[in-house]
Structure formats: C-alpha cells, structure tokens
C-alpha cells in the first residue's frame, strides 16, 4: 500500500470542502451570492464607475 502524496491529500481535501458547500443548501446559496456580488462589483468597476 502506498502512502498518499501531499498532492492527492490536498485534492481530496479540496473536493471535500466543495462537496460540503454543495451539500448544504445555505452554504451553496451564500457561495453563489458571493460570486454574484463579486461579478456585480467587477461590472461596476469596469463599466459603471464613471457614469454614476
């Protein structure tokens, strides 16, 4: 049996966090909201900062 490398452990850990976020409706909700607000901030900075 081979011991898992740091890389595979990190990959599994990353997948675990993502699965945890996806498994909880509220966590997923907040993740999407954070991404959306980030995109909105990007749109504001790129196109709208001068017009407001």
């Amino acid at each position, binding site marked *: 049996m081979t011991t898992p490398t740091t890389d595979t452990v990190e990959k599994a850990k990353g997948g675990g966090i993502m699965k945890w976020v996806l*498994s909880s409706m509220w966590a997923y909700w907040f993740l*999407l909201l954070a*991404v959306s*607000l980030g995109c*909105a*901030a990007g749109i504001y900075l790129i196109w*709208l900062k001068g*017009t407001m």
Partner: protein
Amino acid sequence: MFDFVIAGVQAPIALLMFVGFTVGIVGGFIGVGGGYMVTPALIVFGFPGYMASGIDMTHIAGKGLVSTLRHRQLGNIDWTLALTMVAGTMLGVELGVRTLVYFKKAGTAGIVLLVTSVVVMFTLFLYTQIETRRSHRQMKLLETQGRDPGRELHTSSLPKLFQSINLLPIVRCRTARVVVSMWVIVLVGAVTGFLAGFLGVGGGFIRVPALVYLVGASTHIAVGTDLVEIVFSGGYGALRHSIEGHVDMMAVLFMISGALFGAQLGSIATAYVRGPAIRYVLSYSLILATLGAAMRLVYVLSGQKAPWLSLIAVMLTLGEMIFLCLFIISLLYFARRNRRGEWVPDWVKPLVIT
C-alpha cells in the same frame, strides 16, 4: 460603448445583452417580466428614468412572447385562467395608477411606493419561503419512502378556502385542474393588477404566488399563465411608451437579442424541475429585490446624504440578476446529472424531475 442617439446616452452593448440574457432566464423560469430588476439597471447605465421604463416594457413584451410560446409547447398555459384574469388585471391596473396619481399630487409618492414595495415583497417572500421549505421537506420524506412526489406539491390551505366560494359562474380550468368561481379569479387579477399599477411594475412576482396560493394552480401553470398576462400588459405598455417617444429601439434590440436565448433557456429549464424549485427561485428574487428597495428607502429617508447606500442598491440589483441566473443554470446542471445517475447534493434530489 455604443451611442444611443434617441436616448442621448453611451452604454456598452455587451452589458445590455448580458442584462437581457440574465433577466430572460429568470423571466422564463419564474414567469416575471423582470421590470423591478431591469429598470433600475438601465438607470444605472445612464438612461433617463422614463426611457428606462419604455425600453424595459418594450423588451418585456418581446421576451414575454418568446417565453409564452415555449411554455405553450410545454403545456404550461391555462387559457381560461389567463383570459379571465386579464379582465380583473386591467381594472386593477387602472385603479392602481389612479391611486399613484393621488399620492403624486400629495407629494409623498416616492416614499409610499418604496414602503409598499418593501412590505409587499417581504410578505410574499416570507410566505413563499416558509411554504416552499415545508413542501421541500415533504418531498424529501416521500423520496426516502420510495414514493414518487410528482411534479408539484404545495402545502398551503388557502386554495381550498378560495375554491370553496360558490359564487356563480363557476369556471373549470382544465389545464390547471382547478374549479373555482370566476369572481375569485377576477378579484385576484384586480388585487394583483392594483399593486402592479401602483408600484409601476408588470406584477409577475405578485401574480405567480397569487395563482399558486389563492387560485390553487400548479407552479408551472402559474408561470406559463402569468406570462400570457405579461404579453398583454407589456404589449400595451410598449405601445403607450412608443407613442410618447420613450423607446430607443436600438437598446431594445440589443436587450432582446440576449433575452431571446435567455427566455428560451429559462422556459425549458422548468421542464427539469419540480414546483418548489421555481418557488425557491421566486422567493430569492423577492428577498434580494426587497433588500434593494430597502436600501433605496433608507437612502431617500436619510435625505440622500449617504451615496454608498445607493451604490449597495445598485450592487444588489446587478448581483440579484447574476445570482438567480446562476442558481437556475446550476439546477438545470444538477437535474441533468441526476438523470444520468451521477452524484447530486441531497437537497437537490426532491427539487428536480428524474
């Protein structure tokens, strides 16, 4: 940047198409025109308020037609319900507009509008969210027992109450599988029309919950039927705004080019989900719009001294469009994975059709 000569504004084409696309998806999925999202966004892009309203209405009419055709193919429209409701809606809108004129003369229209928006939207959010969570739990229970929950489940007792009113004539809505007094449908149309006319919106976000919780239609039928109403009201609004010269057709064309794809995607997505999924998205839309309106209300009440409040309202409006769009697309993605037998989160399973 494109020079919109009629509006006298320079705005990025990509942004208009993007707004059209995202609101198209949301509109096709939850059966709303999306005026409460588009009009503030257009004002932020630099369009004058009256022009934003005109462009929004005209694009809603075009987008509503596309969504309606798609929902017709999916069998989600009850024409008896839609046409009976139109009469009440028209009456209600006229009364709503007259009430608005009264408050305008009194000089309190701005604050009254914002307070009414916040109260109506928050109440609808609360009821829809609580009821949908209850339905979600019941669907999960049925699934764990190995029983098929079907396409629709709602736990509200209000439809039974309204359907028990025996005031002639009684209307049989075959597609919606609802037998109800014509006066109930007309009254629901009038009340929702009044709020729509008063708040200056199409009223889809009020009519869809009303069709589900008061008339007793399924969420899919409520969405399709409401879109018929939107074609009528949007078409009339577009005509009136065009006559007044409030429409920049170039802006409308750019928005519609995005909305045509979005509206079809949103409408088709309803075929992959169960009723509570649509109601969840509707309730999220309501709470985010409530927060945006509440920010504007605080901004107005503070004597417009805190411009950051206005900025947060803008962020919420844009963020809401993107959030709802991502949520619908992810539901569609999970539904397809579920059909292929791949892993999906547990909370998604009762919401999608296998």
